[in-house]
């Protein structure tokens, strides 16, 4: 087995975590839930890892807040889901994240995988990351010189390579003013596969039922995640069939899809549009809107 780190470091404070990460440099791998790390044990991608720096004892498992929702990076997805599901207002506003969690096959995964790990893997295939992008999540990063907060889009620099400086780690996801409603949609061949295409939509409605602001995130088999901020096709309008048709076209034209044995680029592009359309329609219905 090529993956043979010689030690596990279980820091009890953030300072200790940063010191360990700085000292180990590129030989360190940060471990949260561990699902991706242990899945990649035999892949060769982790052969350089000399030590695991484990986030489990830093008190980073929590979900709290109302106007600003803070989710500790080590929080298992199952805890996040239960917190959202316990309150109908949360269920509407953070519905995309709840949908994404429940779209994962089974409680075993949800009890292990963490929010921070899903964001840090940085792959468009992650339903959790796609939903967080639509919710405008920001990443709170802890490091040797304190904390900084960046847009999750900027944190997700590439697959398995989040934008972190020496000694830094993701401590929290922050979702500001979760209002309105959101929804996540994906297309998979079977429950356990990565989605061929996925989309999350987050909408805030004006008093007249039109869309006041919107954010749509596209994921699945894409070269990179796409975020559409308040597309003109949607804002100020009611998402009736004509508007949804425009959204479908916009999403289709916005993606850079993979082309492989699972699905052709053209098929993924088509599905990106369909998923965006469905996510917007479901978010709108969840917000209490009605497009007659």
């Amino acid at each position, binding site marked *: 087995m090529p993956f043979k780190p010689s030690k596990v470091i279980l820091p009890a404070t953030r300072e200790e975590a940063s010191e360990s990460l700085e000292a180990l440099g590129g030989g360190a791998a940060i471990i949260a839930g561990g*699902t991706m790390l242990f899945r990649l044990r035999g892949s060769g991608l982790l052969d350089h890892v000399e030590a695991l720096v484990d986030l489990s004892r830093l008190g980073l498992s929590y979900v709290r807040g109302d106007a600003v929702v803070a989710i500790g990076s080590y929080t298992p997805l199952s805890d996040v889901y239960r917190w959202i599901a316990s309150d109908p207002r949360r269920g509407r506003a953070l519905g995309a994240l709840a949908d994404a969690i429940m779209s994962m096959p*089974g409680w075993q995964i949800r009890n292990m995988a963490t929010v921070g790990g899903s964001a840090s893997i940085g792959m468009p295939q992650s339903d959790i990351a796609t939903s967080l992008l639509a919710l405008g999540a920001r990443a709170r990063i802890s490091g040797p010189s304190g904390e900084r907060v960046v847009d999750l889009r900027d944190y997700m620099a590439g697959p398995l390579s989040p934008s972190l400086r020496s000694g830094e780690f993701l401590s929290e996801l922050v979702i500001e003013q979760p209002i309105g409603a959101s929804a996540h949609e994906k297309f998979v061949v079977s429950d356990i596969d990565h989605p061929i295409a996925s989309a999350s939509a987050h909408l805030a409605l004006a008093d007249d039922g039109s869309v006041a602001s919107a954010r749509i995130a596209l994921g699945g088999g894409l070269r990179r995640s796409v975020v559409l901020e308040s597309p003109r096709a949607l804002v100020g309008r009611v998402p009736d069939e004509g508007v949804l048709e425009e959204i479908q076209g916009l999403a289709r034209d916005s993606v850079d899809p993979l082309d492989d044995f699972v699905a052709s680029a053209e098929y993924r592009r088509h599905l990106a549009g369909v998923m965006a359309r469905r996510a917007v329609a479901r978010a709108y219905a969840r917000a209490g809107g009605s497009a007659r």
Partner: protein
Amino acid sequence: MKLRFTLNGSAVELDAEPWESLFDVLRNRLGIKSVKTALCEGSCSACGACTVLLDGRPIYSVMTPAYRADGRSITTLEGLSRGGELHPLQSAFIEAGAVQCGFCTPGMILAAKAYLDGGGGPDEGGIREAIRGNLCRCTGYVKIIDAIRRAAEASGGGKP
């Protein structure tokens, strides 16, 4: 690293390497044969055969570092019967004919145990979601769901 944890009610102490999974330790070193691997080479297929309960929550032992067990409580199928008496879920699986080849059965029963212990009831939707992380390639799930429903009804689960 030195680990101390509770396995099916008994204290266990052993040394584990950082790269060892909980599965490696349970099956290969502690002789727990109810946990199995199936489709995990390179990529987990969420078959659920390696399911164990960690502090009562179902997890995949193949994807869990062994050191995470330190100070915690692990339950495997071997820990369910008491004094030669089968757990009600085990009895229900036999009564309903929910076992064919038996490969998935330990994981199914542990996932179902977590569901019932968490207050889950006999509704089919809840049961299906509870075993969504477990694959069966023989039964078509009908009798497994029936078995869990019987156990839920017998225990009065899901009622306020």
